[in-house]
């Protein structure tokens, strides 16, 4: 198991954002994390990578307890993530943005070798032509790819992808999915939050469904799709109309 999340609890004031979230992620798999808006998916990412330390519970990464470590320590140990709302380093070039990932990620490259790593990664996500541009000048789809490139440049063991497909058109989605599969095939384990259902169903080995901070289902995409609790969380209670009519 590359990642073990054990009974993680996170509260924001009176709001219970995560309740006893527990799962294991075997190496080399893609685990999809789905759930309605506000279900706690991004909060779970933040609890894993140290942005918000959990109130209780443990996060074990590659056999080491990383619960509550600051984000830069977690990044160093081999976890990289992308942000749902893109966070480019605006006044730096695309190349420099990606170099930050390589310099301070798991491998801690020197500036010169980071530039080489960045070249390779930009090629891969299709940003080579933009290398010298300021990150602020990219459009949203390019900024999403920049997020991905920065995370990849760190050469992580575990990649946390927070809605990398949102706002992209079907062609772009197919291209990114293809990249994600290839990254997985190279041995990187992926935990991804996604709202584009068709995409996440096709790419994930397993899925976890969160609703109001609780895991309501876990399993293969088929199992999850047919789970009545999941259908209820997304569509409301399917039996509700029948019951109301019967009364």
């Amino acid at each position, binding site marked *: 198991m590359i990642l073990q999340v054990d009974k993680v609890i996170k509260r924001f004031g009176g709001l219970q954002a995560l309740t006893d979230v527990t799962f294991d992620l075997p190496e080399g798999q893609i685990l999809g994390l789905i759930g309605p808006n506000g279900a706690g998916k991004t909060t779970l990412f933040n609890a894993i990578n140290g942005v918000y330390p959990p109130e209780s519970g443990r996060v074990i990464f590659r056999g080491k307890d990383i619960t509550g470590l600051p984000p*830069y320590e977690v*990044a160093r140990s081999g976890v990289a993530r992308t942000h749902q709302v893109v966070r480019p*380093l605006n006044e730096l070039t695309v190349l420099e943005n990606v170099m930050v990932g390589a310099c*301070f*990620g798991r491998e*801690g490259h020197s500036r010169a070798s*980071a530039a080489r790593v960045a070249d390779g990664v930009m090629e891969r996500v299709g940003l080579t032509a933009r290398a010298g541009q300021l990150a602020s000048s990219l459009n949203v789809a390019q900024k999403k790819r920049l997020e991905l490139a920065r995370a990849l440049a760190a050469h992580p063991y575990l990649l946390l992808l927070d809605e990398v497909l949102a706002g992209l058109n079907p062609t772009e989605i197919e291209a990114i999915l293809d990249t994600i599969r290839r990254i997985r095939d190279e041995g990187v384990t992926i935990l991804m939050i996604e709202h584009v259902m068709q995409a996440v169903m096709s790419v994930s080995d397993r899925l976890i469904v969160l609703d109001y901070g609780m895991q309501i289902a876990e399993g293969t995409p088929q199992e999850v799709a047919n789970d009545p609790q999941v259908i209820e969380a997304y569509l409301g209670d399917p039996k509700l109309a029948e019951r109301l009519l019967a009364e």
Partner: protein
Amino acid sequence: MNAWRQPGFWLTFLLVLVGGGAALVTRDSTLRELVFTLLMFVALSSSLNIMLGYTGYVNFGHIVFFGLGGYAGFYLISQHGWPLYTAALVGGCVSALIAALLGAAILRLRGAYFALATIGINEAARAFVINFGPFGGPTGMFINFSAYQAYGGAMQALWTTYTLLLVVTLAVVVTSYMVKHSRFGLGLMGIREDEDAAMVMGVKAPNFKNIAYIISAFFPGIIGTLFFFKNGNVEPGDAFRLHMSIEMLVMVMLGGNGTVLGPVLGAVGYERLRGFLLTSPLFKNLHLAFAGLALLLIVLFVPAGVVGWLRSRFPALRKVLV
């Protein structure tokens, strides 16, 4: 790091070397006095730029490091008869140490809160020195004129101080370039753009900010010692002038925040303009009002400063204007 092959490095370095070396070659003491002030502000604003420009932390208290470091160095010279060279170095180390201690406390603050804390520190440092007996309290300290004999007389001491200042200024410019083009500098700029995102990418922000603050504080301590040694006395009013901190900010912003060349041009440009304003009967009481107005206009219309504006306007110049 092959700074030696970069035209941008040489442009800035030679600008300072030639500008500062001219007085040494001509032995013109009027020119020396003029350039002494220029070099001082070039070095102060370039060191400020490491925090303000690279790391993105607005520091209104940069003059504190000049004042306290200068006080410490001057104390060693005037009260304990230390030679200028070691005293200046200790002055720098004192400033660096103060930055290390202060940074541990106030670098947890961000944005406006950090800026406000640095203003408070300026006032606190002044109050401390006024009430600190060994530093002469409100009257300060002075050097016995005979002390200059050790440097070959007062006249020669002025030249020695000037030469040292030129060397320190060159060191600041080299440091500024090295920091900007290093892995460390990349981390600082990541912090400037988005501290949380940088930390998620692995930048150890608390340490990086502390180190930047320490580097930025080291040089003003040396320069303070040189400045007060040249003046022959030091008093609290001279050492902690808040408006000088603000003028340094204007210099950095005017020349180009976050560039190596910018603070050099900004310091020279602003200082020359100030010299003009101070000697003109119309503006002599208004030069600070002018500084405020200049800062306002820069922030509103050319936030990137002269060098930043040229870089975005003429991309071909980017290799040269670093």
